[in-house]
C-alpha cells in the first residue's frame, strides 16, 4: 500500500503534552509541513514563547531558542540579523504577544524584520490556568474575570491583525482558523505563503490562528469549535488584512 500521509520530516516523534482537543498540535503540523514543502527546514531557526507552547521545540527537529515571556520577536530579530540567510519564526500565544510582548511585536513588524510570526489566539492564558488575556471577549468568564470581562474596567479585546496592518512595513498579515476542514486548508495556505515570502526575503509576515482552549474554556472540543465560530470569529473576522505584494490575488 502506498503511504499517503505521515509525520512531517522536520517534526519529532514526541507525543504532544497539550490537552485533548487543543489546536496547538494542528498548527505545529502546518508549520512543519510548510517548512518541508518549501525545503527550508535545514536553515530554519524557531523561537518558542512562554505559554502552553513553551516546549514547542520538543516537537520540531529544528534549531530552536526559547525566549522570555513576550520577547520572541526581539530574540528572532537578534538571530535573523546575525544570520540573514536563515529562516526565523516565532510561535506565540495571545498573552505572550498581545500583552507582555506588545512593544516587541509592534516594533519587529514596524522594522519589517524578515521573520514569520505565528500567533495563536485562543482568547485566554492557558499554561497559567485560564486567566483573562488581552484577546478575551467582552463578557467572557476567566479565572481573573470571574464575572465576565467588563469592557469598562478592562477594555475590549485587542485585534492584532488590524493593529499591525496600519503599519507600513509588514508585507503579509492574515487571520485564519483551524475549526473546519475548509478553514484548515486556508490556514495551511497562509502559513506556507508567509514562509515562502520570508524565503524570498520579502519582509515581515504574520499569521494569526484562532484556536480553541477546551480545558480553560470549560467546553468539550466540539462545543469549543462551535463557540469559536459563533463568538470569536465575529469579533476577530477571518481574512487577510495586509497583502502588500498582492500574493493572494496572484495565487
Amino acid at each position, binding site marked *: 500500500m502506498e503511504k499517503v500521509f505521515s509525520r512531517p520530516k522536520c517534526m519529532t516523534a514526541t507525543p504532544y503534552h497539550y490537552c485533548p482537543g487543543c489546536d496547538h498540535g494542528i498548527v505545529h503540523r502546518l508549520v512543519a509541513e510548510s517548512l518541508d514543502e518549501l525545503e527550508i527546514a535545514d536553515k530554519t531557526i524557531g523561537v*518558542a514563547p512562554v505559554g502552553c507552547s513553551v516546549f514547542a521545540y520538543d516537537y520540531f527537529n529544528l534549531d530552536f531558542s526559547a525566549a522570555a515571556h513576550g520577547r520572541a520577536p526581539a530574540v528572532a530579530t*537578534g538571530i535573523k*540579523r546575525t544570520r540573514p540567510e536563515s529562516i526565523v519564526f516565532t510561535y506565540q500565544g495571545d498573552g505572550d504577544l498581545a500583552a507582555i510582548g506588545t512593544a516587541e511585536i509592534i516594533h519587529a513588524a514596524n522594522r519589517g524584520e524578515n521573520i514569520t510570526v505565528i500567533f495563536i489566539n485562543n482568547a485566554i492564558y492557558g499554561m497559567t490556568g485560564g486567566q483573562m488575556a488581552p484577546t478575551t471577549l467582552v463578557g467572557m468568564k476567566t479565572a481573573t474575570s470571574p464575572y465576565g470581562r467588563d469592557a469598562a474596567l478592562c477594555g475590549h479585546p485587542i485585534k492584532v491583525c488590524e493593529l499591525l496592518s496600519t503599519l507600513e512595513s509588514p508585507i503579509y498579515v492574515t487571520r485564519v482558523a483551524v475549526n473546519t476542514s475548509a478553514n484548515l486548508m486556508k490556514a495551511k495556505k497562509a502559513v506556507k505563503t508567509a514562509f515562502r515570502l520570508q524565503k524570498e526575503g520579502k519582509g515581515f509576515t504574520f499569521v494569526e490562528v484562532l484556536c480553541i482552549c477546551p480545558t480553560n474554556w470549560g467546553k468539550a472540543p466540539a462545543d469549543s469549535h462551535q463557540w469559536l465560530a459563533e463568538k470569536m470569529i465575529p469579533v476577530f473576522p477571518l481574512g487577510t488584512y495586509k497583502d502588500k505584494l498582492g500574493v493572494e490575488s496572484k495565487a
Partner: protein
Amino acid sequence: MSEKVLMKGNEAIGEAAVLAGCRYYFGYPITPQSELPAYLAKRLPEVEGVFLQAESEVSAINMVYGAAGAGARVMTSSSSPGVSLKQEGISYIAAAELPCLIVNVVRGGPGLGNISPAQSDYFQATRGGGHGDYRTLVLAPNSVQEMSDLTIRGFELADAFRNPVLVLVDGVLGQMMEPVLLPEPTDYDKNSKKWALSGKSPNRDRNLCTTIFLDVDQLEQHNWHLYQKYQVISDEFTTGKWKDYSCELHETEDAEIILVGYGIISRILKTVVEKCRKRGIKAGLVRPISLWPFPTKAIAELAPKTKQFLVVEMSTGQMVEDVKLAVDGKKPVYFFGRTGGTIPSDFEILNEVDKIVRPD
C-alpha cells in the same frame, strides 16, 4: 594601529569592540553613554555589522540573547536605569550560557536619579542583578586605555566561559579623553561555535538555547553546573590565566593603611597615596580590576601586614562589604563615600586618612 589616538572612553569601548570582532550592537538611548551607540551607529556599517536601536532596553537585551545564541560576538550598553531593565535578559543569557558584553556607564540612582557619575550599581553588577543563581563577570577599567583593553578581554572571557561579561564604568571615564593604543583587529567567525543556532543541517543534532528545566533535579544539576563554572572563573582570576586582571597593588608592601577603590576613584586614591607618603603616612592602594570575581585572596593576604583598610566609593557603601568579607575581622575596615553623583576630592579622602591614622 600602533599609534596612540586621543579618544573618549565611551568611543574607545566602541572601537575596541569592533577590533575584537563584535559586529552586532543592540541598544536604547540613555545618558551618559550616548557616545558609544553614536560611535557604533557610524562604525558598524563600515565593517558590514549591524547597529540596531531597539524599542526598549528589554528588547535590546533580548536581541543580544538571540544574536549570541546564533553565534555572534554581540554587545549592548546602557546606564543604570536601563541596566535595571536589562536584568530579565541578563538572567536568561546567564542561564542559557551565552556569551555577550554589557556596558554599564553608571549614573546616580536609585530611581531616575541623575546623570552624574556614580558607583551605586556595584551590588546589582556583582550579585547577578536579575533573578536566580547566577553571576556575571564584572570588569572595572580606570582609564580610557583600559576601557579599550578590558572590552577586548571581555569578549574573550565571555566566549571562554560562555557567560555574560559586564564592563562597569562611570560617567567620568565615559566622557574623559585620553590617549589610547588600540590593538590589531581580531578575526572572529560566527560559525566557530558548534553549539550556536544556524539551522539544523542533516549531519548534526539540533541546537537549542533554553533556560527552562521543569524537573527539579535537572534545574538543581544545571545550577550546580553554573556554580562550578563560576568557581573555575574565580580560580582563574585568583591564581590562573586571568590573575593579572584581578587587581592592581600599589605601595602595599609596607603600608599601615590600605586604601581600596575601583574605577575613577582609584585614580584619585593614587594621588592620595602619594600625598600621604609625602606627609609620612605609609599608605597603599588595592584597585580591584575584576569586581566579580572579587580579589578576595589578595586583600586577605594583606590583612596581616597592614593596620587598617579604608574603602572609598561613590556610593553609600557597597564594595566595602566584599572587603570586609576578605579581611574577615582581622583588621578594621573603614568606609568613606560620596553619593548622588558627587566625586570625592583627594583632600576629603586625605582628611579621612588623617582621622584614622592620627585620631588626635
